[in-house]
Structure formats: structure tokens, C-alpha cells
């Protein structure tokens, strides 16, 4: 099977209250990726538009966005898997390219969470679960992740400070990421005295909503050669798994088996292991999510996550730098754009173009992107 590379990346600034339409927002990432790859719009043979539809007034956003970016008459479609929609788009584009349907595709993720009112947001929040058997009890995302936080802390004897240390790291790098929505430093003390959201998670354990877009251009090996791309970043391994939505059907409340399975598939396909990863982006919608990812990806033994962050091994100069772009905690989490933003960071790192965030000479990078409360997980392993 032929290889597939990422040859262009783009991202809008992640902001609160983007002052434009969803197509104008999506265009920002589109334009940056096209300029990055040096392509004209006729080079793109198909596009996948990725987001979570409940934040849009526009029905079938793929249509208006493809129109605005000038991507007609090439085929386009909409792909959704909640917070990991855009890495699902990468997986599908990978399939269609290796399967011979296209040799160059655009994966465009976006979310304009400010498109709807606060009241509408509050209403949708209540439906972010199994609406038949969970939502009637009054559920919301922080509470679900808090259940995993309680399970993790109880099982491994870890502390809320351990979680807070992950936010402190995120804020360290968020300050130097010009596209992040939250750019201030955060101290351990600030985290610990912050208001509770859903015990044991407090305000600084949670990422912020944001508006944003991301764009990735994928191409076959032949196309990479034809276009003379200088620094292609290859998709070496892809893994994906799902879990039951309803927590009553899960077996574990201190980690996500979907992430373990997706990682195992991706490592196997790439022929590498956790020790080979030089830089990683993991899905830190909440501090506990990054903590669980350390173990689910094999960066730490079960129960070893707290020690990993205490020893600052996931900082830029540690043994396995994680989220040195500030993560979702600092960048913000515009649902459909998130995965694409993570991939962009790893591509820039592997090209050596990450600026102040650059890790020393990485050869292999990883993206871990989770949808819902461990409902969907995608893991990508990439290399130069």
C-alpha cells in the first residue's frame, strides 16, 4: 500500500467570539494550509469537513465551506466523531488516498461555538450523553471526566495537585503560542484554590470553549514527489476504536481502553513503541484526560502518570514532551478543529518549524485525540 503524507497545515487563531461566519473562519485555516503546501485549489481532489453539528445554524456545513474555499466540483462530505472529528477525517482521507480514489485531499476542521447563545449551549450540554439513559439525570462533560478523575485518584492514590501540575505545564507553553486563547501563566496555587466545577475537578482543570479552524492537506507518495514537497510528514500508523456511550457499559473508570486500543493499532502499524515517540499531542480537554493518556499511550506504567508530571518528564526538555503548544487547556477546544490543530503541531515539530516550542530534533511524533468521554479515540503516529 502506498504511503500518505501531510504536506500542508493551517490553523486560525483560537478565540472567543470569532467576528465572522463559519465559512470565513474555516477559510483562515484553509488559506494557511494552501500557502504552506504551495498549492492551488484545483490541486485538492476532495475535501472532508469536520465539526460537531449542534453548534451550527447552517445545515450541512460541508457544502457552504467547500463553496467558499472554491473546492467545487470536487467531492466533499461532513465527518463527525465529536471532539476527534478532524482526526477521523484524517483516517478517512488516508483510506480514500491509499484506496486510489484521490491523490490529494483537504481535511478541514472547524467550530464556532459562539454561533449559538449561552442558553442554547446549556441546553445542548445536557444532551452530550446517551439521551435516553444518562441525560435525564442531568449530565455534563466536566462531571463525566470528574468521575474518571475520582476513579483515577482513588485507584492510584494520586492527588488533585498532580492534576493541577498538568495545567501548570499547559500554561507554560500556552504563553508562547500566539494562536492560543489562554496565554497567561497559571500557578499550582491558583489551580488548587479555584472554584469547583464537578468534584474533584476545578476551574483550571477544564479547557475553554473557543472558535477556531484547522486544515490539513494529505497526499499520496506519488503526488508528494510530483509536487516536489520538501518536508513531507508521513502517516506511519493509524489506530481507532470506540466504546459504549453509556458509562454503565464500561469496565474501567481510571483510564480509556479505547485509547489503549487505538494506540496499540497505531504503534503496530508504524512498527514503533511508546519509547520511540519524540513528541506528542494528547487530548487534554481536562487535566485528568492528559493524566490518563500518559498511561493509555504507554508513556507511563499504570499509576506512573503522577510521577511523570512531577518529574517534568512531559515538559519540552523531558523524556517525552507532551502538549508543548499549550494543549487544549491553553489553546482552547473548538471541537471540530482540535484534532487538526494537534496534527499541525506535530507536523511543525517534525519539520523543525515549531519556533519557541520546538523540541530537539524529533523523528517520530504522536497525536491522541478523544471524542466524548472516551467514546471515540484516534491515535496517529507520524514521522519524517
Amino acid at each position, binding site marked *: 500500500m502506498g504511503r500518505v503524507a501531510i504536506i500542508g497545515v493551517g490553523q486560525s487563531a483560537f478565540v472567543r467570539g470569532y467576528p465572522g461566519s463559519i465559512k470565513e473562519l474555516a477559510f483562515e485555516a484553509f488559506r494557511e494550509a494552501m500557502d504552506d503546501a504551495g498549492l492551488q485549489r484545483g490541486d485538492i481532489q476532495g475535501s472532508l469537513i469536520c465539526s460537531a453539528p449542534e453548534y451550527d445554524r447552517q445545515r450541512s456545513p460541508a457544502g457552504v465551506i467547500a463553496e467558499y474555499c472554491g473546492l467545487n466540483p470536487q467531492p466533499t462530505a461532513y465527518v463527525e466523531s465529536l471532539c476527534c472529528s478532524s482526526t477521523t477525517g484524517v483516517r478517512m482521507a488516508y483510506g480514500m488516498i491509499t484506496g486510489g480514489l484521490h491523490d490529494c485531499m483537504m481535511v478541514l476542521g472547524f467550530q464556532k461555538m459562539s454561533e449559538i447563545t449561552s442558553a442554547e449551549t446549556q441546553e445542548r450540554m*445536557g444532551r452530550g450523553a446517551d439521551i435516553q439513559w444518562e441525560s435525564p439525570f442531568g449530565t455534563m462533560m466536566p462531571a463525566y471526566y470528574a*468521575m474518571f478523575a475520582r476513579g483515577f485518584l482513588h485507584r492510584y492514590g494520586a492527588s488533585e495537585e498532580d492534576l493541577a501540575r498538568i495545567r501548570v505545564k499547559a500554561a507554560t507553553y500556552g504563553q508562547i503560542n500566539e494562536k492560543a486563547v489562554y496565554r497567561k501563566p497559571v500557578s499550582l496555587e491558583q489551580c488548587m484554590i479555584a472554584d469547583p466545577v464537578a468534584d474533584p475537578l476545578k476551574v483550571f482543570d477544564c479547557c475553554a470553549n473557543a472558535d477556531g479552524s484547522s486544515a490539513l492537506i494529505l497526499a499520496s507518495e506519488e503526488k508528494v514527489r510530483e509536487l516536489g514537497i520538501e518536508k513531507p510528514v508521513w502517516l506511519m500508523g493509524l489506530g481507532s476504536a470506540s466504546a459504549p456511550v453509556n458509562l454503565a457499559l464500561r469496565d474501567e473508570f481510571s483510564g480509556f481502553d479505547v485509547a489503549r486500543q487505538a494506540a496499540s493499532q497505531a504503534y503496530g502499524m508504524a512498527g514503533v513503541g511508546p519509547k520511540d515517540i519524540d513528541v506528542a499531542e494528547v487530548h487534554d480537554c481536562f487535566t485528568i484526560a492528559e493524566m490518563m493518556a500518559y498511561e493509555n499511550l504507554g508513556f507511563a506504567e499504570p499509576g506512573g502518570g503522577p510521577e511523570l508530571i512531577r518529574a517534568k518528564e512531559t515538559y519540552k526538555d523531558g523524556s517525552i514532551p507532551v502538549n508543548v503548544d499549550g494543549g487544549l487547556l491553553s489553546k482552547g477546544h473548538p471541537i471540530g478543529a482540535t484534532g487538526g490543530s494537534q496534527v499541525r503541531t506535530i507536523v511543525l515539530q517534525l519539520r523543525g518549524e515549531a519556533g519557541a516550542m520546538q523540541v530537539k530534533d524529533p523523528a517520530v511524533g504522536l497525536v491522541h485525540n478523544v471524542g466524548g468521554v472516551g467514546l471515540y479515540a484516534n491515535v496517529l503516529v507520524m514521522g519524517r
Partner: protein
Amino acid sequence: MAKNKPEKDLRFERFGTKGFTATTKVNDFIDRLEAGQVCGTKCPGCGQRFFPPRADCPDCSGAGPMEWFQVEGEGKLATYSVLRYAPQGFEQDLPYAIAVADYGDYKLFGRLSHFGPEIEPGCPVTTRAVSLPDGRVAYEFVPQGQQ
């Protein structure tokens, strides 16, 4: 075109503080809950017990209608969290706790009747049906010693 349109069976709309699902083939769950029973379903083909209850067994084709079984005895609290903010329609319940109770063969997702620093994962719980205002019904997990 609409002359044979059946009356809608909207019993499930009454489940929990606020309902989001109106029609389901397991609407009888609501009648049982009103009668004080929290019930799952059991496949007559393979014997699997399901909670939440379901109308179809993913493993058995043509096994016939599901049977009901009652959730009884003691489970263990798997985990829980206490909400300080709530989605629209649940504000008046704050603070409240959502939890998972583990009965071995199956688990339940629902509310916890009591919470506090002494309630930890592993704590024994029982499950009981509860009546809510306006004819609504639900169930909750009761930690040992809080009945």
C-alpha cells in the same frame, strides 16, 4: 395518508428530571419503575442481562421478545462526581451526584442519594425507584447506612 397513524406512546418522556427521549420499545420500564421496580432486560436466546434495558439482543436473531429482570440486592459504587453547575433544566437539583453502580453482571448509571467525603468508590449501594414532581420517575443509588 395519516388515517392509520398510531397514537404515540410517550411514557418514556417522564423518565428523570428532564426527558429527552419520548418513544422507545422499552417503555414498559416506566410502568415497572412506577411500581417500584428498577428492571433490566434478559435475552431469551442467550441469557445475557442488559442494563440499560434494550429491546434487541445484538447476538441473537429471532430469539423472541426480551424478558424483564429486577435489579436487586447490593452493588458497589464504581465512581461518582458532584455537580456544582448543571445543564438547562437541572439547576434546581444542584448540588447533585451522578454515579455508576456495579452489580457484577451489569452496571447502572444514575443519581447517588447521598454524597460526602466518606463516600468512596467501592462503597456498597442499593438501587431504588424514586418519584419526582409532576408524575416523573427515576431511580437512585443509596449508600450503605443511608437508607
